[in-house]
């Protein structure tokens, strides 16, 4: 089943510069794929995404970045909320992050877990799917 949640409470401006920090970056000269490895930290405005490795997927023109494919244990923090999962795909232009692999979302005291979480940064909403279970603290947040 599905649960609709507000994420971060504010729309994330996806045109902010994206900053990626990592221990190493390897670029394959032939097809130009770039892989960041070693506690990678992707920051855009308030949102921080940290992962073991992030693969950069280009748009067709090769100039713009289409998607950031983070894997190896991903945590995303946006103000008071944080989400953890095994993998995440962040499509910058459309501003959607899809987390997959036993996702855990904590919003203040309450927590929500499931298999797949789709966050839309533009309007700050998220949809959790797959074996959703939640812990509510009545009157907590």
């Amino acid at each position: 089943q599905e649960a609709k949640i507000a994420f971060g409470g504010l729309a994330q401006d996806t045109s902010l510069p994206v900053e990626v920090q990592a221990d190493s970056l390897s670029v394959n000269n032939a097809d130009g794929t770039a892989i960041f490895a070693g506690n990678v930290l992707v920051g855009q405005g308030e949102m921080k995404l940290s992962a073991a490795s992030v693969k950069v997927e280009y748009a067709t023109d090769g100039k713009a970045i289409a998607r950031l494919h983070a894997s190896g244990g991903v945590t995303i923090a946006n103000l008071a909320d944080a989400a953890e999962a095994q993998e995440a795909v962040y499509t910058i232009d459309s501003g959607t992050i899809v987390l997959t692999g036993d996702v855990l979302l904590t919003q203040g005291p309450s927590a929500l877990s499931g298999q797949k979480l789709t966050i839309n940064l533009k309007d700050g909403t998220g949809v959790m799917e797959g074996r959703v279970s939640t812990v509510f603290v009545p009157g907590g947040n």
Partner: protein
Amino acid sequence: MPARPDRHSRMIGWLKVLLPLAALTLLATLFLFSDRIDPSDAIPYAKVDVEDLAKDPRMSAPDYAGTTADGAGITLSAQSLRDGADGAGTSAEAISALIETPDGQRIDISAALANVDPSGKELRLDGGVSLATQAGYQLQTEAITADLEQTNLASTAPVTVTAPMGDIRADSFSLTQDPLNKGAYLLVFNGGVRLLYQPGGQSPSP
């Protein structure tokens, strides 16, 4: 004097006077308009310091071409090449090198100074090195070492890169053959890598 001479011989008489005068004035103007030839700057001297040239023999505009074990073609050209004293390896100035990898990638390198060690296997470029790869990466660093045996470039100083996707900064980089598949080459940045990418494509102000 015969009776008044007729018109024809009077005209000839005048001509006998006027024509030589005209010839004389023409001759005079000949030297007036001719350009002054200044004998002192006849031979422009070369301004090269001859003692310096004689002191250490050098080769000007040398170039070197070779292929590495993994099939990448390397061509080097420089402004001047000097053989190092007591086996310190040859050193060259204003180097430009081109590496063509078997999978068709071109890497252009230019550097201020270069030094090939006596064994001739390793090339050290410093004094500001800039590399440009076909994928649109422009790298600026202080110094790199290049292995002439098999393609292995490594920078020994922080490197800043303007890449198609944005600006990158790293402590060092290395360009080696991808161990997984032979033909491809890996450009690896290590140490505090930082990429700044501006969505929408216009490059962010650093």
